[in-house]
């Protein structure tokens, strides 16, 4: 017969035992548990060490840092950072007149301050002011850079390099977001014609490559305008970017709007809000914060898309490197172009990675 059991004295909680396995032993357990895993670990470590050593050798030890022409970087042994350093001005501002360069620095500085302010805001803060800032900054920058009136006029075509990337990214973002929101709202309209036009626009833009839209804007847009009107290349490119990304933003906003359940709108009706008031006070305040991470992802995509400008002849950061590598001072060694590419890769990596970290920080932790 099984006996009865009764516990008289309760067992108090004890603290967890210190891990029985010391640190080095735990690594050994994790990485070298079986012969197969040991082989894999050793192989991976060896590959990693080899790659590090080779890259370090190429990028630091045998690199050439000083010089004004390809003569400074003979051979294929090391990186040609002289190329990058000597041409700092085209990278950063393109052909912007050197006398007015303070305006470019002002733009960079203003954006840096703005970005620091954005990043330091707590994630729960309302996105309204930030989005407004993103809309007004490019307007301010364009006015400052192009000038006219008291400031000397600088043609938009003289803006290049990182400055151009910054201006195009911000302009695209500033135009695509409001347009995209309107289109997303239009797709939910009760008027069938409005719904159809908005849907057609979005599906049409999603079906074609951005490069095709750029080509069309560059080659065809002048054809549809009356004879005298002329739009310069920069503006055409920005229009193409804006329209394309407006469609992308519209899709993002559509998701956000749909996520606000029907119960919310019904409740708003029962407390007597008009359709517009429901939208303004109930739907949008819930929809927009939900899609901010996706909007940041659009911005990252736009930064990467600006490289396409080099294909149509606009002098962005990538274009500046290519032009530099073909200029008479630097043409020749393939190492020079490679060094330029590596520099660009690191630059874009730094920018896009930090933005994606920020976007992940904004996502609700679920």
């Amino acid at each position, binding site marked *: *017969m*099984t*006996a*009865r*059991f*009764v*516990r*008289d004295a*309760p*067992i108090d*909680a*004890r*603290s*967890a*035992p210190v891990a*029985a396995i010391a640190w080095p032993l735990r690594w050994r357990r994790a990485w070298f548990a079986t012969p197969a895993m040991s082989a894999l670990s050793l192989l991976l470590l060896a590959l990693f060490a080899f790659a590090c050593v080779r890259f370090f050798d190429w990028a630091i030890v045998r690199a050439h840092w000083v010089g004004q022409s390809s003569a400074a970087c003979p051979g294929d042994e090391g990186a040609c950072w002289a190329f990058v350093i000597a041409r700092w001005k085209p990278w950063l501002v393109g052909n912007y007149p050197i006398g007015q360069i303070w305006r470019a620095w002002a733009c960079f500085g203003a954006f840096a301050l703005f970005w620091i302010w954005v990043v330091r805001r707590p994630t729960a803060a309302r996105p309204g002011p930030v989005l407004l800032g993103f809309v007004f900054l490019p307007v301010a920058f364009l006015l400052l850079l192009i000038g006219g009136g008291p400031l000397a006029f600088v043609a938009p075509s003289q803006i290049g390099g990182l400055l151009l990337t910054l201006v195009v990214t911000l302009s695209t973002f500033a135009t695509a977001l409001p347009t995209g929101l309107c289109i997303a709202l239009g797709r939910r309209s009760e008027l069938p014609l409005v719904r159809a036009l908005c849907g057609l626009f979005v599906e049409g833009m999603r079906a074609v490559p951005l490069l095709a839209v750029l080509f069309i804007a560059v080659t065809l847009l002048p054809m549809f305008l009356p004879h005298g009107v002329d739009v310069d290349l920069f503006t055409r490119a920005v229009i193409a970017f804006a329209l394309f990304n407006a469609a992308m933003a519209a899709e993002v906003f559509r998701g956000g709007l749909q996520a606000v359940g029907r119960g919310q709108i019904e409740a708003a009706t029962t407390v007597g809000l008009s359709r517009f008031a429901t939208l303004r006070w109930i739907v949008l305040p819930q929809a927009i914060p939900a899609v901010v991470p996706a909007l940041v992802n659009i911005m990252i995509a736009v930064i990467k898309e600006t490289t396409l400008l080099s294909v149509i002849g606009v002098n962005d950061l990538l274009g500046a490197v290519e032009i530099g590598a073909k200029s008479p001072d630097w043409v020749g060694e393939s190492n020079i172009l490679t060094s330029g590419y590596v520099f660009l890769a690191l630059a874009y990596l730094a920018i896009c990675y930090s933005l994606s970290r920020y976007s992940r920080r904004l996502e609700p932790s679920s």
Partner: protein
Amino acid sequence: MIASDAATIASVRASGEPPIVQLQAINKWYGDYHALRDIDLAVNGGERIVVCGPSGSGKSTLVRTVNLLESFEQGRVQVCGIDVAAHAITRAARLAVNRRVGMVFQQFNLFPHMSVLANLTVGPVFGRGTSRAEAHDIAMHYLARVGLTDHAQKRPAQLSGGQQQRVAIARALCTRPQLVLFDEPTAALDPEMVNEVLQTMESLAADGMTMIVVTHEMGFARRVADRVVFMDQGQIIEIAKPDDFFERPQSRRLASFLSRILTH
């Protein structure tokens, strides 16, 4: 080993058969939280054990330790002849144990992309190497056992909660286990479906299947259990036969628990 279940083990040794499950000095921590404290428990073949207690008492953790779904930091587990110590919980051991022990979950955990019949045959065919024909026959037999032959080709989503849980019981039986564990099998069911599942479990018990059941269904415990285990704060407080357990609780905590539960 403290004297918690020494008498049980002694009596079992007297009968000659080793217990089908033996937990010795099991201690488990979640981080720094002492979830299972000095657990000693032996279950014999053919016994029906019901484990109950307030939520957070560690009853589910205890049952999941038996089939090694949960690891533990100190102690030893012996299940169906397989001996596992605290730091030696290998994948092979877990697999071996689970091929002798079946489990029914609170959330059913049926495979949604397979038909009911496929849910029952996948374990025998791909885990034990049973031929498809034989697995099919075993599956139909147990489907009939739980009264759901007509639903063999349906998807789990097409069945009610009670029917899904009965399929889950059949699935556990298809691997021909020596012991079946039940982790709050009726807790996620609407009240009108609780009974059909309890009846299935009772008929299973009547056939002599060894069962360890975590549940709040006290009526079931009274009718079916050989012993009832009461747990609180990660430790076993009292073990007794159902009559003694419910009529003559000897620990204060069990008494107050029963008074809360039974005057519902």
